[in-house]
């Protein structure tokens, strides 16, 4: 019988707990964070499989001339991903996570990909002083998380939330009358297009509560009820549960790219609103799955058409960090 990933990890933690006499919950968390750190740290800086655009085209909001669904929505269904690194670093995406040893081998800042903060112009989140201190503290202890709050929540299988889900692994967009559904590697967002009111404001969610509508080529989404817990990446930037986000998904009429442009407002954490811009590209059946931005299988069927399928996404069940799938081949 196979030994599942979950059992292996539990066993390893148990041995450590016994040897060191440490409190199990904290140790398990630290253990997860360390295990999880390895693959993600290698992926972006290694180039190759992870897209590392140094710049990207601006896309103007305007008319949609591409395909439409029967209900009139622009048809943007399919598999998409970010094109620059991942969640390791929010404002300097190529730099890697705090403590990444390869930092010294990188070109100077102006030759690296731009900050995801597109406004203000300095590329920094306009934190209030206390919040800036908290971010600094998180980065200082990221590689040595002596307290639970220094563990990036995604390493504990928490949903990626807003906006981190968009620069984590690739994801799928499915559309239905009244809905746009985003299936991320860790978490799911249902964007309601029917104009119903937001949830009562005391309900706070990892993926927040989304109300959207289409303006030509642009999906405009009002995002509230965010619990603020997901953090923006391994560099620890954050919002509070008071954050209000206005997202604009601006699709190019080629239907091959879109830019995610979102304004974050939270008077309890920031000194002013700021804007996040994340470029995205489409993946198709002609692309090869690459283990990060594009993770799909081809359907088994009698026809010749290549049909993409997506494995279930499972994480906490395996006691392993990040969006592991539970799939293991039988012996």
């Amino acid at each position: 019988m196979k030994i599942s990933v979950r059992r292996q990890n539990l066993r390893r933690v148990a041995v450590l707990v016994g040897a060191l006499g440490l409190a199990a919950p904290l140790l398990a968390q630290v253990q997860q964070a360390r295990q999880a750190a390895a693959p993600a740290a290698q992926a972006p800086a290694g180039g190759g499989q992870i897209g590392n655009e140094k710049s990207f085209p601006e896309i103007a909001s305007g008319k949609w001339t591409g395909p439409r669904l029967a209900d009139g929505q622009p048809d943007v269904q399919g598999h998409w991903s970010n094109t620059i690194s991942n969640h390791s670093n929010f404002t300097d995406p190529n730099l890697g996570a705090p403590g990444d040893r390869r930092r010294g081998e990188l070109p100077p800042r102006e030759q690296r990909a731009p900050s995801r903060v597109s406004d203000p112009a300095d590329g920094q989140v306009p934190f209030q002083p206390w919040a800036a201190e908290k971010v600094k503290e998180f980065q200082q202890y990221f590689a040595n998380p002596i307290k639970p709050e220094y563990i990036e929540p995604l390493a504990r299988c928490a949903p990626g939330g807003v906006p981190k889900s968009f620069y984590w692994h690739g994801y799928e967009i499915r559309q239905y009358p009244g809905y746009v559904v985003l299936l991320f590697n860790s978490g799911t967002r249902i964007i309601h297009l029917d104009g119903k009111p937001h949830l009562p404001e005391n309900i706070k969610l990892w993926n927040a509560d989304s109300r959207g509508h289409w303006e030509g080529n642009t999906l405009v989404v009002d995002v509230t009820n965010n619990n603020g817990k997901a953090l923006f990446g391994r560099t620890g930037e954050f919002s509070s549960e008071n954050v209000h986000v206005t997202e604009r998904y601006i699709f190019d009429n080629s239907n091959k790219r879109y830019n995610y442009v979102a304004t974050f407002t939270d008077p309890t954490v920031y000194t002013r609103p700021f804007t996040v811009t994340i470029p995205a590209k489409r993946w198709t059946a002609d692309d090869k799955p690459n283990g990060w931005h594009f993770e799909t299988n081809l359907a088994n069927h009698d026809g010749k058409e290549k049909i993409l399928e997506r494995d279930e996404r499972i994480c906490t069940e395996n006691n392993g960090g990040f969006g592991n799938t539970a799939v293991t081949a039988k012996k």
Partner: protein
Amino acid sequence: MKNTETSSAPDALPRRRALGASLLLAAGLIASPLLGGEVLAAETAVSGKIPRLANGKPDFSGIWQTTSAADYDLEPHSNRRDAPPGPGIVEGNFIPYLPAALEQKKKNFANRETADPAAKGFALGVPRTVYYPEPFQIFQRKQDVTVVPQFGHAVRTIHTNGSKHPAGEAKEYWLGDSRGHWEGDTLVVDVTDFNDETWLDRAGNFHSEAFHVVERWKYIDPNTIEYKATLEDPKVYSKPWNISVILHRHREKNFQLIEDYRFTLDYDQYYPPKKP
């Protein structure tokens, strides 16, 4: 829970079934006198115009939930401290466990408070998602049916594009691999490629990785789905058995799913950073 306990069971059927075999099983279901009668009765009982996709197939889009006590225990049970009483949803009342598996079920029941995967916030799997006492939402296109449960994050896709189970070695998914086809207005779904981690309810009823489920989804009226399933697992049960449950459409004004990532509650308190 596992196979040391059930190793005396006969060998599993070949894991990689051709879709044809599944269709035969589904066909067998219809032919069985009991079920056949019920299906016919239900078909004549359909009232009102059911929603349909552009291709004419029934459209199950909506938010659904059972009112049954099935998730507490699929079998008939009296009340107990952690469960209301319920008549059960198993045809013939009891699950035909093999002797060793029945012993394992009893152990599961005794340890249910902590051993139930749902108590940890884990994926409910198939068929438990359908009768767990929280709503789930169905999104439907011609080529697939997407099931998003409120509880947990495990999104299930039922493929209705004529594709088959994955070729090659069997996979071990929490949700299984779901391939559906239409028999009249009934969506028949063949589900294979399971792992052995999920439970069927919080009473400890369980299955192995040889689990095979055939579901039948059909409208009774525009706001009610009759859900039936045949559950088969030669390592755990002596014969296939059937369950049946009714699903009601949520029609409250502005009703929506509210994500329930129960497993994050253990570390919820640590985020986000607080102002000193």
